[in-house]
């Protein structure tokens, strides 16, 4: 794909997945990858950044004799996600408008 997935967009996508329910690393990665062609290695830094900024929190749960780490969106994260959604819509509408205008005149 010719278009790059920027940091704010990826952050928003991860938060959007978590807004549908808590997830552990592997399941979260799979759910993002179902929709987007991203490499796994980009997700760990994203999660750490979101955790640092308070948009998500982390907790551990025992699972089959080990601890599994889960990620949950916080209230601040939900607010942030709403803002990003608004911005994305604006951005997308702008791009759509330009691309469609181009094709109409072409």
């Amino acid at each position, binding site marked *: 794909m010719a278009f790059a997935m920027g940091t704010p967009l990826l952050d928003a996508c991860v938060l959007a997945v978590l807004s549908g329910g808590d997830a552990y690393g592997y399941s979260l*990665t799979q759910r993002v990858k179902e929709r987007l062609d991203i490499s*796994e*290695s*980009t997700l760990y830094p994203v999660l750490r950044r979101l955790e640092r900024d308070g948009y998500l929190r982390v*907790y551990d*749960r025992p699972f089959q004799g*080990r*601890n*599994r780490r889960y990620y949950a969106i916080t209230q601040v994260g939900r607010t942030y996600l709403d803002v990003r959604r608004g911005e994305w819509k604006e951005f997308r509408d702008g791009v759509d408008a330009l691309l469609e205008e181009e094709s109409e005149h072409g």
Partner: protein
Amino acid sequence: MDKRAYLSRLSDNLERYVPDQERWDILRWYEEYFKDAGEGNEQAVIQELGDPATLARRLAEERGYGETRKGPRMWQILLGAVIVVIIAIPLMAFSPLAQLLGFHRVTHDPVEFVTTVPVEQAPSEWYEPDPGYGVDIDINAEGVNVDLHAEDIDSPSVRTNMSTDGDNLDWDFDGQYLYVNWYGSGESSYKAAGTLTVAIPASWELAQVSVYLVGAGDAAVSDLQLCDELYVETEVGNVTAKRILDVGGYLSLHAGVGDVSFDGLPARAGSTYLSTETGDVSATLFCEDRSVPYSLNTDVGTVTVDGVDCGSSASYSVGSVAWHFNAWTNVGDVSLAFDPEGVVGVIQGEDNGGIYTIVPTSPPVSVTD
């Protein structure tokens, strides 16, 4: 390349760029990723992740660590080389093989296990390993820390710093068998609710001791003089065993997630097992000499023996003895040390028969910290 090899290469590469804490976090993430992907998908995950060196560099960059942030300077490399030579010279005379292998595996020629008993001190019968002789202790608890230790008291006591309606705690002692059960509230809590303290008379002779914790909670046992077996396991919590004199058959300390630490004497008629899935394992053996057969392993981390870095595993064999000291972790460090100052007794016995006895030097065991 399998999962272990992959994680280990990733770890080695990360070490150049990121601080240890970050490295552990990253390794934990990938360890979990592998596990949740399923055993059958190991190769697919390795394919997906790509070259470990590239991945390490990429993670470091994205986490904001400069390319050579942790790279050693030339003077550090030279200093390291000088230190290695200084350490290697005395070791070369002692063990050419270890030097050949660059200390990654500590091996020596098999030697006979020999220790002596001073003749003026007759072995105390108290310490004779004799299953069925001594008190059995069974502790089962959920969501609570447990502290089991010996005190200068006449009868056992069970205390807690938690309010209880009486339904949580159930315990009894019939002169031969002490059991303590603590039932969790049933709510899913991932933090231990408080501490349950079980104190036993320091004079007690013990046979089999078992502490089993479910949910979150640390287990601490100290000042136990065992005749037969000690078994401690936590699900999420540290295991600490201090001043343990185990002359009997079996000693096992295991944490699902948590650190395991031990000091005292290893089991002499059977084996000692210290293990955790995620966490560090450390042991200090109060042995008069170092003739303890051991094997130490970590998947992701470092093994050290008396402070010497041994890579990811170290072993030492002592002829054909039935007992063995084992310590391992999936993710974490393993360290083994010998403390001559910690000697609290002299061990005697034959290689295989399990007829070891400890002659207490004075005092037999310290009861207070």
